[in-house]
């Protein structure tokens, strides 16, 4: 019974923790402009993150080492340093976007300008990172993130023309008002939102912090293969709500307030409260994850002591990197750069950096030195290589599409 509870809790945490500011922005924008015509990208992205999160969880459980720790051994100090630079910058940009998302969520509830909330949110974030134990931290925000299930409720309550939505899913081409370049740009953004690199840094490092062993492999797999797809359902519900309410009006979505509006329409005041709470929990939880991930990547490259299992004094360099990263994230927001725009850039650059994260995972997951008999099966490798090809195409296409479409405008 206790084990069942632990598994359920893990799944629920994975669902709530799946959605972050990137998913909220990308799915809302895409739903409004393309209906459900890009829904397939979410499905492809969720399968990809499942595949690679399982690999990195397996590496963590069997070798006792997080993935990024092994990158330097296999790629060499120099290539891994370039990899570190790319991964760190993308994680930092994502961290900034998440902190902005927290501030925007509070603005929706208070109408006080988000810039005033940025320093407060960042301070609270840092205190939680400093003080709170790893597991309750992950649990509380993961479970609170489940509030976003209200998007599923709202979509059903809106009683949409299901047949029409189904037609859009079945006809994955741009609508008359959009061209192929913008279609491609939003496909890249959605894919990057589902496969954001920090998720695997965090997942494998978290596995090591929770001292996973081979015995925990099953739990890790259940979390990934059930939790992430259900998280993907939340993403699709966000897209669906925007599709139903905004697409017929020709309205483009570019604020969190707009993303929440369909819920208010369909579920009312209480729904609106729940959705804002969900925004807060999802972005705050993701800010914790990205803040830690920023520290993980640097500390694991240099071999420094990292993590929350030791006294902060014993991991001074790790905690300094986390602190500086939060401060840099805040500094970027305080330039008054629009948090939604920061999110969009973080998605584009995540897309560019995807191969840096996922190629090493595939290599390490095939290494008998670390994994013994738990190396990838041929089937997993076929899928893994297929995804690597997709990831490379996305990475190469991201910046040209961004320039051609002017960030999709």
């Amino acid at each position: 019974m206790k084990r069942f509870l632990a598994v359920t809790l893990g799944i629920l945490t994975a669902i709530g923790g799946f959605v972050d500011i990137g998913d909220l922005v990308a799915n809302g924008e895409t739903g409004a402009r393309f209906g459900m015509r890009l829904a397939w990208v979410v499905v492809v992205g969720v399968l990809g993150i499942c595949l690679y999160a399982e690999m990195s969880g397996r590496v963590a459980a069997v070798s006792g080492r997080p993935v990024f720790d092994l990158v330097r051994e296999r790629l060499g100090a120099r290539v891994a340093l370039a990899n570190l630079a790319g991964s760190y910058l993308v994680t930092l940009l994502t961290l900034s976007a998440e902190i902005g998302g927290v501030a925007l969520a509070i603005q929706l509830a208070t109408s006080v300008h988000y810039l005033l909330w940025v320093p407060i949110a960042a301070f609270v974030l840092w205190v939680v990172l400093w003080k709170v134990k790893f597991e309750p931290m992950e649990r509380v925000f993961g479970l609170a993130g489940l509030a976003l299930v209200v998007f599923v409720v709202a979509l059903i309550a809106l009683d949409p023309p299901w047949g029409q939505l189904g037609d859009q899913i079945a006809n994955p081409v741009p609508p008359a008002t959009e061209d192929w370049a913008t279609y491609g740009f939003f496909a890249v953004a959605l894919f990057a939102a589902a496969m954001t690199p920090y998720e695997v840094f965090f997942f494998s490092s978290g596995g090591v912090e929770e001292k996973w062993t081979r015995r925990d492999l099953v739990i890790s797999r259940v979390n990934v293969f059930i939790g992430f797809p259900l998280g993907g359902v939340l993403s699709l519900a966000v897209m669906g709500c925007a599709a139903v309410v905004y697409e017929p009006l020709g309205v483009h979505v570019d604020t969190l307030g707009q993303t929440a509006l369909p819920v208010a329409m369909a579920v009312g005041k209480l729904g609106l409260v729940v959705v804002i709470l969900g925004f807060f929990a999802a972005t705050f939880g993701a800010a914790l994850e990205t803040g830690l991930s920023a520290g993980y990547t640097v500390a694991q490259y240099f071999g420094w002591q990292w993590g929350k299992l030791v006294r902060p004094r014993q991991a001074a360099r790790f905690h300094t990197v986390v602190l500086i990263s939060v401060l840099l994230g805040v500094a970027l927001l305080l330039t008054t750069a629009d948090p939604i725009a920061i999110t969009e850039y973080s998605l584009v650059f995540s897309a560019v950096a995807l191969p840096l994260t996922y190629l090493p995972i595939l290599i390490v997951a095939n290494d008998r030195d670390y994994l013994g008999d738990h190396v990838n099966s041929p089937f997993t490798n076929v899928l893994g290589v297929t995804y690597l090809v997709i990831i490379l195409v996305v990475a190469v296409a991201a910046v040209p599409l961004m320039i051609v479409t002017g960030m999709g405008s």
Partner: protein
Amino acid sequence: MLISVGAVLLALVLTGVWPETPGQFRSTVETSVQDALSSVGTAHTTGQTALRGNAFGPYESTVLEDARRSVATAITDIVESEVPDQDSRRLRDEVLPLLQESARLISDLGTGLSEDDRGAVSAAAEGLVGVRERLTAVLGGLR
């Protein structure tokens, strides 16, 4: 190396100061009209949701504030652009009043909601429907 950096910088500067072509002006207007349409649509839906009692004050004012700012930016973008020819001037004169009307109605909606004046809210929401139709028509013509 230095030469290519210099060439890129020069290209950037030139594209920044080069006179606007009618095509560019048209695309600026198109973006502005689309932004206004988005804001008007959002504001109207927010107004209706608020009238049914399905939202609360801080949320409504945040959404309407975002919408109003977005229209203001759309107006500024057009006004700041150089008008390259007669056709562009006609386009500007057609669109600008519509954008101003949008900004005014969104403002009125916000004031009505904060003063809890249902009559004013309904009137503004009704006005927004009309503006939305006209914006949609203009956008259709621009595409």
